[in-house]
């Protein structure tokens, strides 16, 4: 197996644990000189980034107004407007934080967990509940998976998303129990249908308290809980929500499932880990140790394990390289930015389904290519191109490679860029649409 040299490995590390450039203060290329061990420690250092834009203060949504009641039409409109405004404020805030942070791994990691516990504001409606979930994912995303899983099973946004409120003893709703096993903790093939039904019974009685103007809270109503013991994966006991999570997380399948999902985003969506690697990674310990084990696996340094940038990585990476801050864009430009992400198929807080976002070649469609071309043209108009403008025309392609964190343009792309190098905006826009930028080496 071929192996990247240290510089290329550090470059890959910074790309994949961040958004393609190290941020406003320097390009990935500058940082690649620091050496592997130091770079890895620095990335995984879990300190907070106190300078990152703080979350917005989102209030409760107004009363919804009853469907079909004409007198409530005004209330319904106000409700929809509030939902839309909260959603936009929340999304722009997170994008802005991703674009501004000095510790991109914290945001990237939070995005990976958002993909894992995929919950959409489309159904949840409350921006405040989505933000609370985002904070949980951010603060618990580097510790024990069990702690994260315990918090998520009682996360009001996730519970609402998966209809937990309707899960009662008399007619259990299996949605949360099923996805807990299939997607969040164990993976397909590690449980039977009966386990799902029994786990749903164990979770009966839990609902979301949405009364008043306070934050939503998980609430247990014993009269709705199915009494007695349940049998889940061979263990019979009277499970609580927490003991059920603990039981699932203790299965050998759990660390392997979690490691495989992280692997697909950090190493390769096509080439899974070897059994030996998976054993080692699954046994590594807490989530930071798991990520460290993934990043130090020999496969991480295999040049064949390239990744297609997810749309959020692609867009945020470009914003960082060009010094664009979403929060500082005026209304129309913000709308364009959100439409770009929508058109590319990845809007934060709105994953398409509980399974999260697609991988790899699924992003490489003609339709997405068209959206990227539109985005590139906007971004070079909004962004800071001083470095490109001030360089002599023949050095502009190289300057753009440095800014965007592309190790080298292919001969083909180099020729196209050289052709356009006389016009700074045009050459920059072409660079942003180039295959070498979209697919991470």
């Amino acid at each position: 197996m071929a192996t990247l040299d240290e510089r290329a490995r550090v470059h890959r590390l910074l790309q994949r644990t961040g958004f393609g450039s190290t941020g406003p203060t320097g390009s990935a290329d500058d940082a690649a000189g620091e050496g592997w061990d130091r770079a890895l420690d620095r990335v995984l250092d879990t300190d907070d980034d106190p300078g990152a834009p703080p979350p917005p203060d989102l209030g409760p949504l107004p009363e919804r107004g009853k469907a079909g009641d004409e007198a409530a039409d005004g209330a319904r409109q106000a409700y929809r407007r509030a939902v839309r405004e909260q959603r936009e404020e929340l999304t722009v805030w997170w994008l802005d934080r991703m674009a501004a942070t000095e510790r991109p791994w914290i945001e990237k990691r939070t995005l990976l967990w958002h993909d894992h516990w995929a919950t959409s504001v489309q159904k949840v409606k409350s921006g405040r509940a989505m933000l609370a979930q985002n904070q949980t994912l951010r603060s618990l995303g580097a510790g024990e998976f069990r702690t994260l899983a315990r918090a998520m099973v009682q996360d009001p946004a996730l519970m609402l998303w998966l209809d937990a409120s309707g899960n009662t003893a008399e007619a259990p709703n299996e949605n949360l129990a099923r996805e807990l096993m299939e997607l969040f903790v164990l993976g397909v093939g590690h449980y039977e249908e009966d386990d799902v039904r029994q786990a749903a019974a164990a979770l009966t009685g839990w609902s979301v308290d949405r009364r008043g103007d306070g934050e939503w809270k998980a609430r247990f109503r014993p009269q709705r809980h199915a009494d007695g013991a349940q049998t889940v994966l061979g263990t019979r006991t009277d499970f609580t929500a927490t003991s059920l999570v603990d039981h699932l997380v203790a299965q050998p399948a759990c660390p392997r499932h979690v490691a495989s999902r992280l692997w697909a985003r950090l190493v390769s969506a096509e080439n899974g880990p070897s059994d030996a690697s998976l054993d080692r990674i699954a046994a590594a310990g807490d989530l930071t140790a798991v990520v460290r084990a993934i990043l130090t696996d020999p496969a991480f340094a295999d040049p064949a394990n390239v990744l297609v940038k997810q749309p959020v990585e692609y867009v945020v990476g470009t914003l960082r390289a060009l010094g664009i801050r979403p929060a500082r864009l005026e209304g129309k430009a913000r709308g364009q930015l959100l439409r770009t992400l929508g058109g590319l198929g990845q809007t934060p807080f709105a994953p398409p389904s509980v399974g999260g976002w697609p991988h790899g070649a699924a992003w490489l469609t003609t339709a997405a290519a068209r959206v990227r071309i539109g985005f590139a043209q906007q971004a070079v108009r909004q962004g800071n191109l001083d470095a490109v403008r001030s360089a002599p025309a023949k050095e502009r392609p190289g300057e753009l490679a440095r800014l965007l964190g592309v190790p080298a343009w292919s001969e083909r792309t180099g020729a196209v860029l050289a052709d356009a190098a006389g016009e700074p905006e045009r050459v920059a826009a072409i660079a942003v649409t180039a295959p070498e930028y979209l697919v991470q080496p």
Partner: protein
Amino acid sequence: MDTWTRRKFLTTSGVTAGAALAAGATAYTVDRLLASGAAEPRARDAKILVLVTLYGGNDGLNTVVPASDPAYHDLRPDLAYGEDEVLPLGEGLGLNPGMKGFKGLWDEGQLAVVRGVSYPRPDHSHFRSMSIWQTASPSGPVPTGWLGRWLDTAEDHDPLRAVSVGATLPPLLAGERTAGAAVQLGGARLTAPWQRVCGELARAQDGVHPLQARAAASLGDLRTVVDRFGNEEREEATGAPQDPDEPRDGAEGEDDGGGSAGSQGQLAAQLAVVSEAIRAGVPTRAYSVSLGGFDTHAAEKTTQTRLLGQLDEAVTGFLRQVRGENVVVAVYSEFGRRARANANQGTDHGTSGPVLVLGEPVRGGFHGDQPGLDHLRDDDLATTTDFRDVYATLLERVLDADPGRILDGHDRTLAFL
């Protein structure tokens, strides 16, 4: 523009279409494509397949409703439709009250209801079940979709033979050597200089990773698609691209029931693109469109009625527009839902459901047996029709293909075409 463009089930647990697409990356270039015979318009007598995927698991029992069966009312008292509400089809069955257009087509003999369709040992996972449906591989997902394998059998590897309306490609259209094209609603105009850049950036380059080659090819495909599908703004025809977070269809607030397994989309707008392409004589033989939001664990009646209404209106209007063009529409979902209702007026994941096939070439009526409510297993319906029978019929009689080559030897067909 986001909700309908989401290709929902290409995920960790699903099809590895990525690998298939990557493998096909260098199989065609724009020049080869343009040089191929595909630039010729479609032959007049060639039939067209429009596959409508309902994401989330549509409740078959409330679509083709056994309203006269007392067991149906016992199983879901709050969810059941009365005999006087449904649109009668005979044999004790009736269509959901929201499907008046489909009833009209039934009366004209242009709606086939294939009953009890699923695969052996149905899986209750959205992702796994949708993967199985899209790959037509009942034993578990394989890396290629059934229409992707059909694309592979054509010698020219033309991606435009199968087109998906949306931003990302459903696994359905991923072959080993060829992937269908994704065409998006609306979007910016591509100026001549950018078209040229796309062509140049798409030039094959030795020694690059297949995914990077695929990224380059997507730019070349874009140029091709713009060439063939025209390069004008579509906003006026299909509604302006919206803020991705803008509520659609006034549905905001009403769609709480079915959200977590794919959300609703603008099916009518997607079909408007298809209709335009068909009438323009584009050589595409298979189109994929979708409608999401059918995961009705809660408040099912409101959500499903609204969605089936959208489906009915969109498909009926579309078929009116393409009259005389030999179009066959097939509507399916990854599973039906549990026969017994749950506590919040919804249903959990189930097994078999009806596949609806519509259009002038179709032989209307019932095909396959209705699964009985008297022998449920764990409250789930039996499977009476193998889903590959439906695919084999569509492959043989719409796409003029040999089903056995595409369905691993399966060539049993049904009489609906």
